[in-house]
């Protein structure tokens, strides 16, 4: 762990994400306002440091007089929660499928590989949009959709690593000594596939936060008035010329989150010296 933290990219990425998580979990640290409290007398108030801004609303207010700081932090809850939970679900699913496919080989392997190939040719965003439009979107629908969206990469990486370990002498030795399949997978294989999967998981969180943002941006994410970065950007579009702060802060938060997960993922990849290519 300390070896990992000595890598600047890992340290910065990890600390940044932790800070973000703390802020998002305790919005009270920054603002006392609720995310959906409307003060119609205080609409489109600019950020505190600008002319006409007030210390009451640090980052200003939107067209309904809602506090931008509060909405950005509360919106981050949704984005990060969905991103983390869905990426974790995708990783768990991917690791299980990859282990079985890579270790068993044969028809199981062929089915999983072919399913992955088919999935990569699937226009996911279109399907997600259609699904959300039809069944409606609450958090659980979003999480399931995004988890399904991201299962291929962890599966492919785990499968490739497992298949190559399967041929190693020490695995043959373990089999020869009568170790059960589950024992071999758990104590020899799983340990090795965790490192590349950690990298993939980190990068997936960022990707899924963006997709959640895109769906919310199209008006197909969590339902209003619940704040989310994507829906705030969508709301702010109409006031682009006069009130840039409506899009600037959720936009910056979203970009920062993705940049941090990318930084952490790339840093981990270098530090753990893993290849995440599956070939």
């Amino acid at each position, binding site marked *: 762990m300390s070896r990992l933290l000595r890598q600047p990219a890992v340290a910065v990425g990890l600390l940044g994400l932790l800070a973000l998580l703390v802020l998002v979990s305790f919005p009270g640290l920054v603002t006392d306002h609720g995310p959906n409290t409307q003060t119609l007398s205080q609409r489109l108030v600019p950020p505190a440091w600008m002319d006409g801004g007030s210390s009451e609303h640090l980052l200003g207010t939107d067209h309904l007089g809602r506090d931008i700081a509060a909405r950005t932090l509360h919106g981050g809850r949704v984005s990060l929660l969905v991103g983390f939970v869905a990426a974790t679900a995708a990783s768990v699913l991917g690791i299980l499928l990859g282990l079985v496919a890579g270790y068993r080989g044969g028809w199981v392997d062929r089915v999983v590989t072919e399913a992955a190939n088919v999935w990569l040719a699937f*226009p*996911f965003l279109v399907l997600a949009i259609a699904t959300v439009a039809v069944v409606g979107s609450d958090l659980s629908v979003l999480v399931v959709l995004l988890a399904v969206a991201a299962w291929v990469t962890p599966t492919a*990486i785990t499968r490739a690593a497992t298949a190559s370990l399967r041929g190693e002498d020490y695995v043959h030795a373990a089999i020869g000594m009568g170790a059960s399949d589950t024992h071999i997978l758990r104590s020899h294989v799983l340990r090795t596939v965790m490192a590349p999967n950690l990298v993939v998981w980190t990068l997936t969180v960022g990707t899924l936060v963006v997709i959640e943002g895109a769906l919310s941006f199209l008006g197909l994410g969590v339902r209003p008035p619940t704040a989310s970065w994507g829906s705030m950007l969508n709301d702010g579009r109409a006031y682009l010329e006069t009130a840039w702060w409506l899009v600037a802060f959720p936009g910056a938060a979203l*970009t920062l989150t993705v940049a941090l997960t990318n930084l952490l993922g790339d840093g981990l990849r270098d530090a753990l010296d893993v290849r995440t290519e599956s070939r």
Partner: protein
Amino acid sequence: MSDLATPEAVGTRGPTAAGGVLRSALVWVLRLLVVTLGILTILFFLLRLSGDPAAVVAGAGATDAQVEQVRVSLGLDQPLLTQYAQFLADTARLDFGSSLLTDQPALGMVLDRMPATLLLAAITIVVSTLIGVPLGVLAAARHRRTTGRLLSLLAALLQAVPSFLLGILLLLVLGLHLGWLPTYGSGTPVHLVLPVATLAAITIARIVRLTRSGVLQALGQEFTGAALARGATRRRVLWNHALRNALVPLTAFVTIEVAHLISGAVIVESLFAYDGVGRQLVDSIFRRDYPVVQATVFVIAVLVVLISAAGDLLLHRLDPRMRREA
């Protein structure tokens, strides 16, 4: 925009090694069937489970009798499986019915809009490749110097900006503040600038990173050192020997990216009110115009699979290893 098929995952999608091109083509025909059938089945059941299409078609003020009449005329009174069989039979004849709003054939509406979307995707890919590949080679050649580091940093940063955010920023700066470009609409070449710039920025960033790592990897190997020792110029080694090494992952990436651009155009088209299939899809969803939704998803699915197949065949030709590997 969705970048779920990261370059990391591209490896799985290589051609099925054994049996050559013919077999590979056969596999792709099967995949085409599985993908389109799968996506249509999901859509069919989602649409039927999510409420009463008859009530939607009949309109808000319809009486119970009118709704019932629509139900019978649409065949919605039949058992679900009968409806499903009918739906598949219609699809096989490419009959998706008519738009619930305009009464035009749904498939025709989608095909009318398709050229605009394809144009957007094609220009984006060409522009991105023309800009991204040279920058990637440059970033690799200068990887220890400021130019190279700056390029890598810039690419990493650009990759973190979601397309819808970048689109808003470009709209704000180039369209509204400077007033150089039209902010919405389609039809003339200038209308393409902002959507293409939005889509291309992220694609360029990915191409730069991919090219850089491919070229760097080649520069670390013996064959480039050997070429230099034989007296080849550094420039020649870089552009001929090293770049060729990056060509296979690049081709794999570009085909996946074209497919993504077509489905990902949904966001950019909505943002810039560009008249392509993506915007029509979103509009149809909000208007509950299901025939158009189904036709759009069908056409996009078929296109995406065909493009993946074409890329697969291209890879076969590019990389001799894939032909030999059995």
